């Protein structure tokens, strides 16, 4: 059974890889779905957008194989549907630019598969033995959590590989925690389902990361970011590792929180009178020193002297890695 799942994942990975090479790199560019990297004004290279569709293709092929062999679990189906719904909303936004309020509201729909397919837990387990019996409130929390995580990752797609790298680390963290819980007998989650979920998510996100990391050959677009963010939120809920999910996503959540709270609400980039950062012709990044420019996490980072894109990417990824270890150890300690 494990072999079947593994082979399904391998085949899906190859198809996803071919999809990127043949469709994203060629057909998307032909259709005008591309842009230039704003942090590399010296480069004339066109970068295909909406590469997140490759994740959806990978997942679709993997799920199709599991359905063919009649081995699919409800959790995998749930995660797949969450990803597809969020991804579709993202794809529409990539093509047509949705309103700043409509987009987050639509991502609530991505939470519906969890509500309808998976029995939401009636207890919310928190650190130090605290638990709340909140069956109805939990459902509302699910409807709020998925839009938050998907839009947090979406807003954190600021540099090459940051969104995909952050998602990969968060999913790895949740996977490791769940595996530890299963191995020590704290959790009776099926190992087969765990294996399916792991192979549904990690290879697909890794595939995106391979092409999205610095220097990017492909942008994942809102298709990728909304989908990945929704997946992390859904995985935290399905694995009952809600607090751990928040810890692993603390950087993108902080980024969104800082931007939204300072701006005073949702905003489109086009609404900003001043940009938070300035990109020089040679790619050097500078914080906008105009006081009216919005306070963002990246602007704060640049004020501390970072001025190369790679430096800022390393800054963010290092914090993510530290949060990964912090999250795993502190979660095991307090739960």
């Amino acid at each position, binding site marked *: 059974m494990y072999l079947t799942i593994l082979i399904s994942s391998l085949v899906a990975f190859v198809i996803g890889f071919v999809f990127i090479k043949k469709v994203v790199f060629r057909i998307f560019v032909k259709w005008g779905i591309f842009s230039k990297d704003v942090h590399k004004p010296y480069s004339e290279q066109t970068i295909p957008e909406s590469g997140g569709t490759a994740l959806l293709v990978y997942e679709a092929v993997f799920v199709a194989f599991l359905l063919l062999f009649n081995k699919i679990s409800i959790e995998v189906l749930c995660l797949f549907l969450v990803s597809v719904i969020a991804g579709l909303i993202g794809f529409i936004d990539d093509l047509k630019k949705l309103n700043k309020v409509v987009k987050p509201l639509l991502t609530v729909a991505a939470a519906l598969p969890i509500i309808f397919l998976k029995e939401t837990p009636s207890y919310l387990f*928190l*650190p*130090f*033995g*605290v638990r709340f019996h909140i069956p109805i409130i939990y459902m509302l929390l699910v409807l709020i959590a998925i839009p938050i995580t998907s839009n947090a990752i979406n807003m954190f797609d600021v540099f090459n590989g940051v969104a995909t790298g952050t998602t990969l680390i968060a999913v790895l963290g949740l996977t490791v925690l769940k595996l530890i819980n299963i191995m020590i007998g704290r959790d009776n989650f099926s190992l087969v389902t765990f294996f399916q979920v792991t192979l549904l998510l990690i290879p697909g996100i890794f595939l995106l990361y391979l092409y999205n990391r610095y220097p990017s050959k492909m942008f994942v677009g809102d298709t990728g970011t909304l989908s990945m963010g929704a997946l992390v939120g859904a995985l935290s809920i399905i694995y009952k590792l809600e*607090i751990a999910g*928040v*810890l692993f996503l*603390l*950087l993108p959540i*902080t980024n969104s*929180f*800082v931007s939204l*709270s*300072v701006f005073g609400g949702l905003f489109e980039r086009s609404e900003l009178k001043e940009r938070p950062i300035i990109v020089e012709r040679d790619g050097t990044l500078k*914080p906008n*020193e105009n006081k009216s420019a919005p*306070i963002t*996490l990246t*602007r*704060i*980072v640049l*004020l*501390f*002297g*970072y001025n190369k894109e790679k*430096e800022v990417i390393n*800054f963010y990824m*290092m*914090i993510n890695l*530290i*949060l990964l270890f*912090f*999250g795993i150890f*502190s979660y095991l300690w*307090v739960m």
Partner: protein
Amino acid sequence: MNTKLEGFFIVLGIILLVGVILMVGPKFLFDLNVFLYRLLANRVGNLFTAVIQLAFSGVIALLFVYLWRLFFVFIFRYAYNKKIKEKSTS
């Protein structure tokens, strides 16, 4: 300390602090609510006790959100003033 390193540790420190508060906060709120229940339930009844518990929890949660935002505004101001000072001295 090198400015870049200083910036890294300041941002990391705030984010980890938020993480720690998220881990211990629910326990703190839970204990506070239990304390309030034991203190008030017999005197004002369960309904008013619940209202007071909700109000206290709400205020603490909002305070946390406010301080979270404030930390980053402070970090920004600190970094901004430091940058302006460096520019004027160089």
